């Protein structure tokens, strides 16, 4: 009786959801974040619903299964535009974004009220690598420090500290591809000494990201500049949301998302920029470091390159933009802080251009050469630049390193716009069995 009462009360809270993002899965996040009935959480331990969004590529399948088993019981799983694993009997598949929040609430209520079984564990309840227990001290190998207990190297100082000579035990670990602060799909092997990144190796590159269809249309025919600039501002606002969430500015991050959702030519960024400036985001938060050299900046292109002072923007060559008096905005710092200033400046500029273009009814004129929010798209689409992290992040503290990751839009461009299904390059495994570990 008491348990029933507790469960009924528990079902009244917002639904704690941990998203496992597959290809094109992140497009739904912005909608879910603004839903008052949903709480997106950063750790699977804090969730009761696992949302597998999009198709999970084969090489991330094993990671997804591990995340699945990390949710505390009772929990349930929903698949959004992806095929549920065949051995999960209660799995629900949803394809319509509009009904997803309701489906999440329903699944959670049913789970809490006992009308839905908790998802079964799919991996055996034992360490992925057995404890070897060898050596003089049971450390799992020969000699005092020779072991790899549980298949992982022991925390010990193999390298000198790269900052101040205070050598602490180094800790090597792998993170991703579903870590909330990484671009979707990315994983890395990282060595930390204390709070300091000693080495960083990107192992799985992020999924190619999809852009608004207007950028694809603009390569085929002229499109209204107002439309393309609003799409650009929206893309940057979504990135700003991630950066502010990471910095602990929950209210401001939601403001950025709300602005993106209701964006029009009458929108203005003034309030948000004033708040960020006054709250000390640019002075106090962990957004130091991550400075790109000219060659690195050119490799990534787009706003990150302009934040490093490179005056390159394909819009300068477009007659429509020239009519509006366009000239690229740039910063000089090239670091994380400069990139966030650049993002704010570009959003502002896009809104300004959109207003002007709407009033004068101006369209684009250049077809083959498009400046996307990710960077220039001429003959080739902007490609993945996540290898930059390997050079950029060593030497940074953990908070600064993650802020640098959030400030850099490194994922390459997908060959299809938002809202279309992924192509052959992202073939997914359908219906795993749980026995093939």
């Amino acid at each position, binding site marked *: 009786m008491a348990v029933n009462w507790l469960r009924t*009360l528990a079902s009244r809270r917002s639904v704690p959801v941990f998203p496992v993002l597959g290809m094109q899965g992140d497009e739904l996040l912005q909608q879910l974040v603004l839903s008052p009935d949903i*709480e997106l959480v950063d750790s699977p331990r804090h969730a009761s619903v696992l949302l597998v969004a999009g198709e999970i590529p084969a090489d991330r399948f094993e990671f997804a299964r591990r995340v699945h088993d990390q949710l505390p019981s009772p929990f349930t799983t929903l698949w959004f535009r992806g095929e549920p694993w065949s051995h999960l009997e209660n799995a629900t598949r949803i394809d319509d974004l509009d009904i997803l929040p309701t489906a999440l609430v329903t699944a959670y209520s049913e789970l809490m009220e006992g009308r839905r079984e908790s998802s079964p564990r799919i991996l055996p309840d034992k360490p992925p690598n057995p404890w070897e227990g060898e050596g003089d001290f049971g450390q799992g190998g020969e000699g005092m420090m020779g072991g790899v207990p549980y298949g992982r190297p022991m925390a010990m100082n193999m390298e000198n500290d790269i900052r101040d000579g205070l050598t602490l035990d180094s800790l090597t670990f792998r993170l991703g591809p579903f870590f909330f602060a990484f671009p979707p799909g990315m994983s890395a092997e990282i060595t930390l000494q204390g709070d300091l990144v000693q080495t960083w190796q990107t192992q799985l590159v992020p999924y190619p990201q999809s852009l608004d269809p207007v950028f694809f249309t603009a390569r085929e025919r002229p499109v209204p500049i107002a439309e393309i600039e609003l799409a650009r501002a929206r893309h940057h606002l979504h990135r700003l949301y991630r950066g502010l969430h990471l910095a602990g500015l929950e209210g401001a991050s939601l403001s950025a998302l709300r602005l993106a959702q209701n964006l029009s030519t009458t929108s203005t960024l003034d309030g948000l920029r004033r708040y960020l400036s006054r709250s000390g985001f640019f002075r106090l938060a962990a957004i130091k470091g991550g400075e790109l050299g000219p060659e690195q900046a050119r490799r990534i292109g787009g706003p990150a390159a302009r934040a490093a002072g490179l005056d390159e923007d394909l819009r300068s060559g477009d007659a429509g933009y020239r009519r509006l008096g366009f000239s690229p905005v740039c910063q000089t710092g090239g670091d994380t802080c400069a990139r966030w200033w650049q993002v704010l400046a570009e959003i502002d500029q896009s809104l300004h251009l959109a207003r002007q273009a709407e009033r004068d009814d101006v369209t684009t004129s250049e077809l083959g050469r498009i400046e996307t929010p990710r960077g220039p798209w001429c003959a080739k689409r902007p490609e993945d630049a996540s290898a930059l992290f390997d050079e950029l992040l060593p030497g940074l503290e953990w908070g600064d390193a993650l802020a640098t990751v959030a400030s850099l839009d490194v994922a390459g461009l997908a060959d299809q716009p938002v809202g279309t299904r992924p192509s052959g390059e992202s073939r997914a495994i359908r219906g795993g069995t749980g026995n093939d570990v």
Partner: protein
Amino acid sequence: MFSELFLPVLMVIFMLIVGGYAVAVLDRLVASALGTSQDGGIWLAPMARGAWLLTQHANATEAPDWRAWRLAPALYLALAAGGLAVVPWSASLVATDLVTSVVLWGSVEALATVVIFLHGWSANSLLALIGGYRYVALGLSYILISMFVLIGVALPAESLQFTQVVASQAELWNVIRQPLGLPLFLIVGLGMTFWGPLNLADSTDLAGGTASEISGPPRLVWDMARAAMLVAFSGVAATAFLGGWLGPWLPGPLWMAIKMLAVLFVLLLLGRLLPRLAPERCVTLMWVVLLPLSFIDLVWAGIGALL
């Protein structure tokens, strides 16, 4: 027997529960006033969250230090209870009116470092461990400032007893007598309770830090302990700087509650408005700016006591 043993215990338990609930409600009120979307009704949501954690299983990680991992939230709650026990609600209504209650609060601050590290370390998990290390690295700087500031309020009282500290403010509250004290102590509070801009142990960049791996009842205890510690800190701040129960017209305990709520409101508002400080900048701020300011506060208090 009843008034010496049971009454203080009941009083502390009452404050743990009501205080924890008050923090949850007040934080949601602040959030909704600032336009941050929140779950459900403001009054019901904390209870729904508590019920959810009670129905959820406590998960395991790979080879945690079980005893320490389960004990750490309870120990932190016990420390918060210890802090609440020395907060006086009136000259006579105080759970334990120790002659060294200021020292006891100091020990709560110091032991919190041990417990928070234990919580992060014992999960045997990466992000929790970093959270624990961060707290230890920063904890010393908060505690030093706190000690200087509290010695400052003990000087005019010529006592280490919180009831005497309140009595010494009958003519002039310490917030005016020692203008640097309360601002410094509020920053200490944010650091010590790892809240808002100084939440480096359970931060978003660590997916919840020391709490990133916990679920179910242990998480409920941890959340309650954090809220209770914030209440205990507000009680100490109201006692040390805002004249405790002193005030006209209203009964003493009511004045105390109003002052504690005011301090809580300021802390929660700062928590919602400011970004999380970079650890490196935080250490620099503490040692280079705030610690010298706390020396000045102490010298100021000493001169005031001599005159």
